[in-house]
């Protein structure tokens, strides 16, 4: 009995954590390259949820009913449009602030976050929206009342996240654009002098970050089925926490931090109290940072005196 419950909670935690991780990647990428906490990221994720739902509605309208086709085309369309959102936000609100104080873009990001929420609220209404269940059913292990299950949707989430992370890790570590990202992060001026188009690199980081958030947004939309214009806020804070937990700036760290956070929440909620799970999560973060000031996988900045 107990083992089944524990296993189920682990499944719950890992799924939630994977989603946190996917959103956290956006924070980490942007931070990694321009040292900016992009507080509008949660709202980009929110926008992507709407785009995914609208795309589904449009597909249904035109009579496309095949689930795998729908899922894949929604993922692609959502990533592309959300990516353009990421690009446009950077272009309009952050690029003019390059080279000013570090905090200016932070405030600008808060403004963008308000704008996006308000824009979606005005356009789509404040009420909760939903999508029909796309994939139903689950792998079940066990029998009767004693079982562990992983829904097909959860499986899709895990696979999609793995694929997305795999692609990203490869891009960052082994491709030219990844190297240029890392160079830009360390010294933008010199990178430009060496011929790196830093504006384009920064734009692409925002696009990639937004697209990853869109993967998260799409999956969340289809997994939980409901959303409104305000979901970005809580998710934003959680994902930011995950990013820092893992060491902000580190891609695998973001995923690890996300999963750790998801597991912590699930286990604490399951075995202690739902009321205080967030208090616990934040306390854990503070304690962890106390002992590892750069997060789990973050590297200390080389500080040669």
């Amino acid at each position, binding site marked *: 009995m107990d083992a089944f419950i524990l296993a189920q909670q682990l499944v719950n935690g890992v799924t939630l954590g994977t989603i946190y991780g996917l959103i956290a990647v956006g924070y980490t990428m942007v931070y990694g390259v321009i040292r900016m906490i992009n507080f509008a990221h949660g709202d980009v994720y929110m926008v992507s949820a709407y785009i995914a739902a609208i795309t589904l509605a449009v597909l249904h309208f035109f009579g496309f009913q095949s689930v795998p086709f729908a899922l894949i085309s929604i993922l692609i369309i959502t990533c592309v449009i959300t990516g353009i959102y990421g690009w446009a936000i950077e272009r309009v609100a952050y690029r003019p602030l390059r080279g000013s104080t570090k905090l200016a873009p932070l405030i600008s990001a808060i403004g963008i976050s308000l704008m996006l929420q308000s824009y979606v609220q005005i356009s789509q209404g404040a009420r909760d929206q939903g999508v029909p269940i796309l994939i139903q059913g689950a792998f079940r292990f066990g029998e009767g009342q004693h079982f562990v299950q992983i829904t097909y949707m959860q499986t899709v989430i895990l696979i999609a996240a793995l694929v997305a992370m795999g692609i990203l890790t490869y891009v960052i570590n082994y491709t030219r654009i990844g190297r240029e990202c890392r*160079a830009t992060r360390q010294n933008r001026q010199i990178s430009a002098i060496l011929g790196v188009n830093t504006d384009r690199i920064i734009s692409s980081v925002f696009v990639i970050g937004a697209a990853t958030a869109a993967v998260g947004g799409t999956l969340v939309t289809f997994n939980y089925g409901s959303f409104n214009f305000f979901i970005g806020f809580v998710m934003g804070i959680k994902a930011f926490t995950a990013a820092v937990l893992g060491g902000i700036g580190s891609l695998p760290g973001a995923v690890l931090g996300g999963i750790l956070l998801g597991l912590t929440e699930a286990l604490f909620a399951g075995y202690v109290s739902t009321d205080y799970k967030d208090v616990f999560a934040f306390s854990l973060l503070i304690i962890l940072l106390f002992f590892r000031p750069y997060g789990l996988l973050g590297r200390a900045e080389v500080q040669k005196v």
Partner: protein
Amino acid sequence: MSTTETTAGPLLQFESVHAHYGPVEALKAVDVQISKGEIVSLIGANGAGKTTLLATIFGAPRTSSGRILHRGEDISTLPTNRISRRGIALVPEGRQIFQDMTVEENLMMGTTPIGMGHFEEDRAQMFDLFPRLKERRSQTAGTMSGGEQQMLAIARAMMARPELILFDEPSLGLAPLVVKRVFEVLAEIAAMGKTIFLVEQNANHALKLSQRAYVMVNGRIHLSGESAALLDNAEVRKAYLGLH
């Protein structure tokens, strides 16, 4: 666009260039010419504006008036990242290597303007020039000593196969032995047919290496001429060579 014709004029030319940092005018009507294959050095006191002069070539800061011509084309409004594609490379003051990257990755970054096509070949050449880098090829660059970093910065600039290389105080903070080695390397690089524009505090070395030189004072070109002549100039000897 860079491979079209080689005009008869100078490779790089400053035409009455002014530059500002906010309200401070750092360059005042600067005229400098560099022809293909030359070694030209620029000396001057601290804060004279030497680094600024090099930086304006890359548009940071941008010129507030005047033109910078490369092969006869005005490059002063081009985006920074387009400059290096024209075959100009900079070895920046204070080295500025990518601290968190390995030596090899730093070299890869150097190839940005021309792509990785000749990477293996060029890397081998750099390792010949700086055997020390070969030993440290996978060390994180930030943990290397100053001299090692300087060599890396030079090698990185060379990876783009530039025609014109700008050196900003390459001997800064290096041990005497290494300073000698760096100047030998400069000579070797010049022997490869590259054009060199050298900014140095170490006026003695710089003037000995170069054919022509400019002396900068307070943002203006104060003197210019054959290096050998400047070495004998009383004013230069007193102010920049510390001799009486």
